[in-house]
C-alpha cells in the first residue's frame, strides 16, 4: 500500500511540476510564435502583390485570401492562399492577382516537400518569377522544354513536370474557387 501511494505521489508531483514549467514557457514564447507567423504572412503578401502597404485578411469556408491596399487606400489586388498535393507532400503557396483580375502579380511557395534538386526548384526565384505578369484567364497551362508562347503559359521545370503541374493545378483550382465567391 505504502509503495503504491509513493508511486502515485511521485508521478503526480512530477506531472504538476512539468505542467507548470510548460505553462510558463508557453506563455513566454506564444507572443513570439504569433509574431513570427504574422511576419511570414506579411512577407508573402508583400511579395506576391508588390506595392501593398496594408492588407485585410478574409476567409470564406476554408479559402483564405488577403485584400491588398496601397498607400492611398486603393485596392490593388488580392493575395490568395492555396494548398494542394504535390509529388511528395502538401504544397502551400500564395498567389497574387491584380485588382481587375487580368494578371497574376506574383507567386510565393510557402511550404513544400518536393524532391531536393528537382521538384524543390519550384521554390526557387526563377520558377516563381514566371507567374509575375502571367495572364489569369484562361487558366494557366504549362509547356515542357520550350519557352512559353502564350500569355497564360509557364515553362515546367525539367525533370519535375509533376511538381510543376501540381503548382499550376493548385493555383487554377483555388483561383477558380475564389472567383466563384466573387
Amino acid at each position: 500500500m505504502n509503495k503504491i501511494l509513493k508511486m502515485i505521489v511521485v508521478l503526480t508531483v512530477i506531472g504538476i511540476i512539468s505542467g507548470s514549467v510548460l505553462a510558463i514557457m508557453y506563455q513566454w514564447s506564444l507572443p513570439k510564435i504569433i509574431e513570427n507567423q504574422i511576419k511570414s504572412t506579411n512577407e508573402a503578401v508583400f511579395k506576391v502583390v508588390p506595392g501593398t502597404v496594408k492588407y485585410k485578411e478574409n476567409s470564406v469556408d476554408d479559402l483564405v485570401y488577403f485584400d491588398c491596399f496601397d498607400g492611398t487606400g486603393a485596392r490593388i489586388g488580392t493575395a490568395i492562399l492555396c494548398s494542394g498535393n504535390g509529388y511528395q507532400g502538401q504544397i502551400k503557396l500564395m498567389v497574387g492577382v491584380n485588382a481587375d483580375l487580368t494578371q497574376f502579380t506574383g507567386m510565393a511557395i510557402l511550404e513544400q516537400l518536393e524532391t531536393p534538386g528537382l521538384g524543390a526548384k519550384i521554390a526557387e526565384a526563377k520558377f516563381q518569377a514566371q507567374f509575375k505578369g502571367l495572364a489569369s484567364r484562361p487558366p494557366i497551362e504549362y509547356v515542357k522544354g520550350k519557352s512559353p508562347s502564350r500569355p497564360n503559359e509557364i515553362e515546367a521545370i525539367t525533370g519535375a513536370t509533376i511538381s510543376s503541374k501540381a503548382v499550376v493545378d493548385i493555383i487554377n483550382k483555388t483561383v477558380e474557387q475564389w472567383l466563384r465567391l466573387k
Partner: protein
Amino acid sequence: MAKIKVKHTLFFEFVKGLWDESPVFRQLLGMCPTLAVTTSAINGFSMGMATSFVLICSSVIISIVRKLIPSQVRIASYIVVIATFVTMADLFLKGNFPEISKALGPFVPLIVVNCIILGRAEVFASRHSVIPAFVDALGMGIGFILALTVLGTIREILGSGTIFGFLQFEPMVIMILPGGAFITLGLLIAFINYLKDKTKREEVAPACPVPYGSGASEVK
C-alpha cells in the same frame, strides 16, 4: 546484485561520449534524426544542439531525483521529465528560430523518444550523482552534435555544393535524399571502425551499447 564498481575519472566520462562510445558511430543510437535531418550542416548542428540541451537537462534532473523515484515508475517519470524539456526546446525554437524549426519539422518533438536520452537516463544518470551525470550527458551531447554536423557537412558539400550556405560545386542530388544519408553514415562508421581496429587493438573497448562498468545488465 554483484556490482563491479569501477571508478572512472570525470575526464573519462566526458571523453567516452566523443569517441569510444560515440552515440551515433559506436552505439548506433538516435538513428532517426541522424539520417533524417542531416541534409545540411546547419540542420544537423541545430538538431544536435536541441537534443543535447534535452539530454543534459534531463540527465541532471533525473540524477537529482533518482533516489525519490520508485523503480516501478521510473521510466514513466523519465519520459515526463524528458518530454518537458523537449517541449521547452520546441517552443524556444519556434519562437526564436522559426526557419530552423521549420526545417527540423517533426523531429524536434520526436526527441522525446530518442533512445540516447532515455538510454543515458536509465544506465547512467539514474545510477550516478549529479556531476558525473552532467559530464556524461555533456560528452554524449557533444558527441551527437559532432556526428550530426559531420554528416550534415558531408551531405551538404556533396549534395547541394555548399558549406553552411557558402561555396559552390556541381551538386550530387542523391546525397541529400534519404539514400545519401545511409551511404554517408555507413561509410563513416566503416571508416571509424577501421581506425579503431588499427589504433586500439590492445585496449579493451567496451562492447556498445552496454556502457562501461555501469551495471546496465542488472535486472531489478
